[in-house]
């Protein structure tokens, strides 16, 4: 990907060039970013066209609420390879669909073969909900009466929610997707926070952060965005805006601190989240904290801290966020600032 460059832009209108640059430039790649900047600086009309293109592209985020798109979307989803209805076309469509689904359906097949599970753990929450430290560093909260059955293998971390409700904060592991099996669906994630409730009536999957893909055997996969919920009830599947407050009501989500040093506070906060906060500065550690906090979302907690204290949060290894005094943090994004000269 990084060696690809947008084609020659000469002779194109600013809109045409902006379309190409938006689709084909990987801004994470320094060479491509430099080329984009050169084009933007060439002419104010270029920058204008590119910013407009960003707006137009972003406007499709609201597509779900825009009725005139409903019909074209239905037609687009129904479109398959070849439009004539000769029988082999149907077969081709199946192959195409199978290719499209191949990646996500693999776990189903693997489940029926002898699973080479390295590690099996069964958790049950009899009387009351339990906070679980899973073997890979993921966290889960299992609702009262629930049962969670883990099978961790070399290629996959699988958790079966036989019944009940669970919340997951999944540790990132690109080589071993985390797959939750619930209510006849597979929920595949790399690293994210989400809530699953499964009972005889149906299933609901609410995504709080990151991205998950929900697959029914034989159905199209559904990719959820944060704040969306997939609800299966009476055999019908729906994606809707999640009621996040309701999603959190069932589990313990608050802790209270009364004039505690930040070092103690983060130990408690770290119990509930994959993302670990760390401090190596005694002055930061000594900050006094009072208040009621929501657990399980340490990024949010850190965001609150950096708003109120002279602190910055800096990535510090996988799933670690270091809280530092503001001067060293400042050097992060203002390279010409005093902190840059180390």
């Amino acid at each position: 990907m990084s060696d690809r460059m947008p084609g020659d832009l000469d002779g194109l209108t600013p809109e045409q060039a902006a379309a190409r640059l938006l689709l084909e430039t990987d801004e994470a790649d320094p060479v491509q970013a430099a080329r984009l900047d050169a084009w933007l600086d060439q002419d104010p009309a270029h920058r204008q066209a590119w910013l407009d293109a960003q707006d137009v592209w972003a406007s499709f985020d609201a597509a779900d609420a825009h009725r005139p798109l409903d019909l074209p979307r239905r037609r687009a989803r129904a479109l398959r390879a070849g439009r004539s209805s000769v029988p082999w076309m149907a077969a081709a469509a199946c192959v195409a669909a199978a290719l499209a689904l191949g990646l996500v359906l693999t776990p189903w097949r693997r489940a029926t073969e002898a699973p080479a599970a390295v590690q099996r753990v069964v958790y049950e929450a009899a009387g009351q909900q339990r906070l679980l430290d899973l073997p890979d560093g993921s966290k889960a909260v299992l609702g009262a009466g629930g049962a969670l059955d883990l099978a961790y293998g070399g290629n996959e971390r699988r958790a079966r929610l036989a019944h009940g409700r669970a919340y997951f904060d999944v540790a990132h592991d690109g080589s071993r997707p985390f797959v939750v099996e619930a209510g006849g669906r597979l929920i595949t994630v790399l690293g994210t926070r989400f809530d699953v409730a499964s009972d005889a009536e149906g299933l609901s999957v609410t995504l709080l952060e990151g991205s998950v893909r929900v697959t029914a055997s034989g159905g199209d996969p559904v990719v959820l965005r944060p704040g969306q919920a997939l609800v299966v009830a009476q055999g019908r599947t729906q994606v809707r805006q999640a009621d996040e407050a309701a999603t959190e009501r069932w589990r313990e989500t608050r802790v209270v601190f009364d004039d505690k040093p930040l070092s103690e506070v983060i130990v408690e906060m770290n119990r509930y989240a994959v993302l670990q906060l760390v401090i190596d500065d005694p002055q930061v550690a000594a900050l006094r904290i009072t208040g009621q906090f929501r657990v399980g979302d340490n990024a949010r907690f850190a965001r609150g801290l950096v708003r109120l204290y002279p602190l910055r949060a800096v990535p510090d290894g996988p799933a670690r966020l270091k809280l530092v005094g503001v001067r060293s943090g400042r050097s992060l994004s203002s390279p010409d600032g005093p902190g840059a000269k180390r």
Partner: protein
Amino acid sequence: MLLAHEQRMGEPVDVSADGENRHASARGGAMAALLAKPLAAFFRRRLGPGNEAEIEDLVQDVFLRTADQLNLAEEEHARAYVFRVAASVWIDRHRRRQARQADQHVSFDPDRHDTADRDLVRQLDARETLRAATLALADLPERTRAIFILRRIEGLAVREVAARLGLSTSAVEKHMVRALEHILTQTRAWR
């Protein structure tokens, strides 16, 4: 989030001086430093220069959102991921501002940036933009339109669209360019 008690710190502390970083910390810090500059450039590209304080906040936001997913062992992956998050941080900011209808007051100084009509464009409700884009979408050939929809709205990857429609990935990419070129040209005329 309630922080009832707020203690003042004296002088800001420079942590880098105390040299007690562990191994992973050093690596994480190096990665953060490596990504900070291009990330700032990403936001500067969109905001224009002279907004350094806000740019810094946006970079901070990216770090906060990516912290628990960032696998620093895979640099390429981390970089790509961080920039995906940067894009969504940018979109969220855009939405928040639109909700507050504060865009034209804070974001751009037409004299300085010599793009007086950028403000005008920015004031357009995103819904209006979407309405115009949808109209433009309607006059594309069905296949091109469907590809754009599957990719941009339904969120399918290029190779997924290609497999579904029995096309090569480069053909799908060409349809995408054609669709977006058309939409941009049409919405420009409409504006």
